[in-house]
């Protein structure tokens, strides 16, 4: 791609002929320019092909020595206009395509979409299906957070080993998904008014076994993290996010709660049967990378609690509302916005129906896209190496960012 024609080429203003630009340094603005002797800022295009950018994500960074003075995220390399495709497909036809948004958490994507359509058409969900949804969503949260921590440690230079530890656990959960839905990552499991197939008693038993083994992994992993000198040096006081900025910028999920804002949609909206479950919402104090990292560990512990209760309480019964006609599905005219607490934040779907078999408007509210809004604010004043760690702690998946 010819970079010179792109607008964000001009990240650094100022003469490039070696003469020193006479720009006074103003500490209040990020672009107060430099006090370096040669008067040059270095402009680096990080990504899109970079192992630490978690996919095809690019950052145009202006550097003063090692310090970041400006950062502009560039994305769209994976853009396939998911929303347009959704408008040209039937309501049911979009369900498997939601798997491809955040391909780590296909089941929570399914749930958010199903929930929005159920709101749009006023569909009730059987009790067993609601429990299955909660079980699958919490399993998804476990495997997403575990692999995120692995990736983050990988970004910090602990190459391979912690990631493989996390993936070993994730593998067990993916096996569960595979035996239930037929696919490890692209599950396509939920339907408007329930779930596609029922889970047998055998599956529940196996899921319990996986869950029983999980705390041991978590204890071990936390021990590696919490007291590790390198992790502490690389993450504490790095990339601080204040609560005010987080609220204003629409940050959601573990990243928001790491800044100390108590806002968990499982508690606030109480969708599904979450009000029936006892669990706590962990909060951070500092809002730095370390807090964001530990937030995932603490959330995993709460997810384990929810899962234990769900396995005890899950009733027998049908998993699909028999009144819903999936094939010729035509919701009444109207619009609805439904949202759930996904592992990465608030995942919402906004649908407008004109009474036909396709949605008139199909919009995804992608949490990782909106969480990137403040990436520049987090990275300013830190070094290049920190940018990778901060980006890792935001937890993005490009399939969802670019759509």
């Amino acid at each position: 791609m010819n970079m010179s024609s792109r607008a964000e080429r001009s990240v650094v203003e100022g003469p490039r002929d070696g003469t020193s630009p006479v720009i006074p340094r103003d500490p209040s603005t990020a672009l107060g320019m430099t006090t370096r002797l040669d008067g040059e800022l270095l402009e680096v295009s990080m990504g899109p092909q970079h192992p630490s950018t978690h996919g095809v994500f690019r950052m145009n960074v202006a550097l003063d020595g090692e310090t970041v003075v400006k950062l502009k995220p560039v994305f769209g390399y994976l853009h396939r206009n998911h929303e347009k495709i959704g408008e040209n497909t039937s309501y049911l036809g979009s369900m498997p395509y939601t798997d491809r948004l955040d391909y780590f958490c296909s089941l929570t994507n399914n749930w958010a979409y199903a929930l929005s359509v159920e709101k749009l058409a006023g569909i009730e969900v059987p009790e067993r299906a609601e429990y299955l949804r909660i079980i699958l969503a919490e399993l998804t949260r476990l495997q997403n957070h575990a692999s995120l921590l692995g990736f983050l440690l990988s970004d910090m230079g602990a190459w391979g080993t912690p990631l493989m530890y996390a993936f070993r656990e994730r593998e067990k959960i993916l096996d569960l998904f595979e035996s239930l839905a037929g696919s490890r990552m692209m599950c396509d499991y939920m339907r408007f008014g329930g779930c596609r197939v029922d889970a047998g008693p055998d599956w529940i038993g196996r899921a319990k076994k996986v869950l029983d083994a999980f705390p041991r992994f978590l204890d071990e992993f936390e021990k590696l993290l919490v007291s590790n000198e390198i992790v502490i040096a690389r993450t504490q006081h790095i990339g601080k996010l204040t609560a005010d900025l987080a609220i204003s910028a629409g940050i959601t999920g573990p990243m928001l709660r790491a800044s100390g804002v108590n806002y968990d949609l499982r508690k606030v909206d109480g969708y599904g049967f979450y009000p029936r479950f006892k669990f706590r919402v962990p909060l951070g104090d500092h809002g730095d990378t370390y807090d964001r990292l530990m937030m995932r560990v603490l959330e995993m512990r709460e997810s384990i609690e929810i899962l234990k209760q769900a396995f005890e309480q899950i009733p027998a019964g049908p998993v699909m509302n028999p009144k819903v006609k999936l094939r010729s599905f035509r919701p009444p005219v109207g619009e609805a916005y439904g949202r759930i607490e996904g592992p990465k934040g608030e995942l919402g779907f906004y649908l407008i129906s004109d009474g036909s078999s396709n949605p008139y408007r199909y919009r995804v509210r992608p949490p990782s896209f909106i969480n990137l809004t403040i990436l520049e604010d987090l990275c300013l004043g830190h070094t290049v190496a920190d940018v990778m760690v901060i980006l890792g702690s935001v937890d993005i998946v490009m399939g969802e960012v670019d759509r």
Partner: protein
Amino acid sequence: MESLEEIKTRVEAAVPGADISIIPNPGPANQPSLLIDNEHAPHVARFLRDDPALRLDHCSNVTGVDWLDRTVTKKVKVKKLVEGEEKEVEETHEEFFPGYLESVYHLYSMALKQGPVIIRMRTADRGEGARLPSLTPVYRSADFQEREIFDLYGIRFDGHPDLRRILMWDEFEDYPMRKDYREPDDYEYEPTPHDDVLEKAKQHYSTRPQLDGAEELTAQE
């Protein structure tokens, strides 16, 4: 939380001159919205954010909607004098509604844990008049999402600090989420930033048959 009517009266009292109407939502979701005039929208948004009873500090979702021009034909029975006799005659009336683009904001309160309040703004038309005031100065979270609307729908947001394309490349010419968007016939000629390809694309666009003309072409063949 207060009902939408109460919010409407309070906003109208607080922001003099604001023209607000309630858009009903007939579906079971029961999420009606407030349509706000473009001139006062930033003031209204600021009021909704700062009002102690509402505190709608979380702008969750920002999105665009395209509504095309539409003509509604109605059959009306009219009494008329036909050959000296009064008869009931059926007449068809055509009513024309001009199209517009819309931006929708879903506001929630993190402080008071309530919501949503949905506000919308409408552009004058789908061409030159597709301009709206930006709410990014009020809600930082609208930053990328308004850029996305600009990119995919072509609504220009006045007052946005950094309005550029975000998902498509800068040289892209059309707005792909519009309902009348037509894909290029041949993706080989889709403009990429390379100069020679851009040159090719220019020729391609000039010879591109329009939506209606294309049907005629196939009929002739």
